[in-house]
């Protein structure tokens, strides 16, 4: 693109931003509560025994939308893996005479110690976020992406080989399928129980003493989503790392 054209495009964007920014200042959220928001705030606790209204919307009231969202992630990961795998196989053939450029810098003790020391707490924190979805902000998606950074820390502190050892691809692929399928199966249980798809048919638990089990199907769906997101992101990172590092001569 030529410079004047780029500048023009930028100016259009900048003017648009200025207008929207002005509108945002004039109408900041907070004073304008929507009816839907107020309804959810009032209903989510007595109806579903869920403290976090956002989770109640995501995994119960609009659970079907989230099912679609989860499968968008599933399909994107699958697509990326299929694309990357093809180039990887092709590359293997022409790799023989290739030259290996610069090696990766080996980690210092400080990096190793900190990343490996943080791996455990990251896993615990991720699981905490997943299972407390109905009580505090968080849930399957958020906890899942946190969990997926744990193998990444192992890669940073150790090596790609160790990363591959903890994230065996076939196992992760199966895990991802279980997570994605689990959501749909929990939905079907609603049908089997004589109700609607994704209807909250599990026992809701004690409303006044909420725990990780209150909320009926919501904790179960959160767990399935958490598994799916963790496995999906790990698979994606693993494929990208493989592409970049596998034939570099180091690991």
């Amino acid at each position, binding site marked *: 693109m030529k410079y004047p054209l780029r500048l023009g495009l*930028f100016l259009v964007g900048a003017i648009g*931003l200025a207008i929207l*920014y002005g509108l*945002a*200042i*004039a109408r*900041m*959220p*907070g004073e304008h509560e929507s009816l839907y928001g107020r309804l959810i705030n009032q209903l989510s606790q007595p109806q579903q025994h869920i403290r*976090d209204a*956002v*989770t109640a919307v*995501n995994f119960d009231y609009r659970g079907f939308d989230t099912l679609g969202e989860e499968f968008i992630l599933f399909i994107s990961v699958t697509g990326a893996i299929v694309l990357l795998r093809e180039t990887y196989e092709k590359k293997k053939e022409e790799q023989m005479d*290739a*030259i290996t*450029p610069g090696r990766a810098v080996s980690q210092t003790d400080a990096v190793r110690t900190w990343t490996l020391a943080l791996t455990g707490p990251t896993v615990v924190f991720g699981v905490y*976020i997943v299972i407390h979805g109905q009580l505090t*902000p*968080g*849930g399957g*998606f*958020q906890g899942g*992406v*946190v969990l*997926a*950074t744990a193998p*990444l820390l192992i890669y940073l502190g150790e090596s790609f080989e160790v990363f591959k050892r903890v994230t065996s691809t076939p196992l992760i692929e199966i895990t991802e399928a279980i997570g994605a399928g689990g959501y749909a199966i929990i939905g079907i249980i609603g049908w089997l129980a004589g109700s609607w798809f994704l209807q909250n048919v599990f026992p809701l638990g004690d409303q006044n003493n909420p725990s990780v089990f209150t909320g009926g199907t919501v904790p179960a769906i959160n767990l399935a989503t958490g598994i799916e997101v963790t496995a999906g*992101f790990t698979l*994606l*990172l693993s494929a*990208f*790392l493989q*592409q*970049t590092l596998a034939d*570099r001569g180091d690991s």
Partner: protein
Amino acid sequence: MSFDVNTILQLSVLALVAVAGTLVVLTRDPFSQTIGLSFFGLMLALMFFILQAPDVALSQIVVGAVALPLMVLLALARIRRQEFRREQKKGQEEKS
């Protein structure tokens, strides 16, 4: 229109997001741009948090500040290696 602490906080974080986004666009070198992108992701997470959407902020921190820049960086590293290899091959051909 009232300007309490919350409003000022919201306005400043919105401005920060705008500035960070512009800086990412204006950076020419892809590698520095990726670091800027990571910072932009962090600012977005802060914005979600201040606008009372902690659920979104949690996923934004990991995806925007870690996962996305990492994937861009890995893709860049791969491209650079391919270029390096092509140049080496060219050099060899010129020699022979």
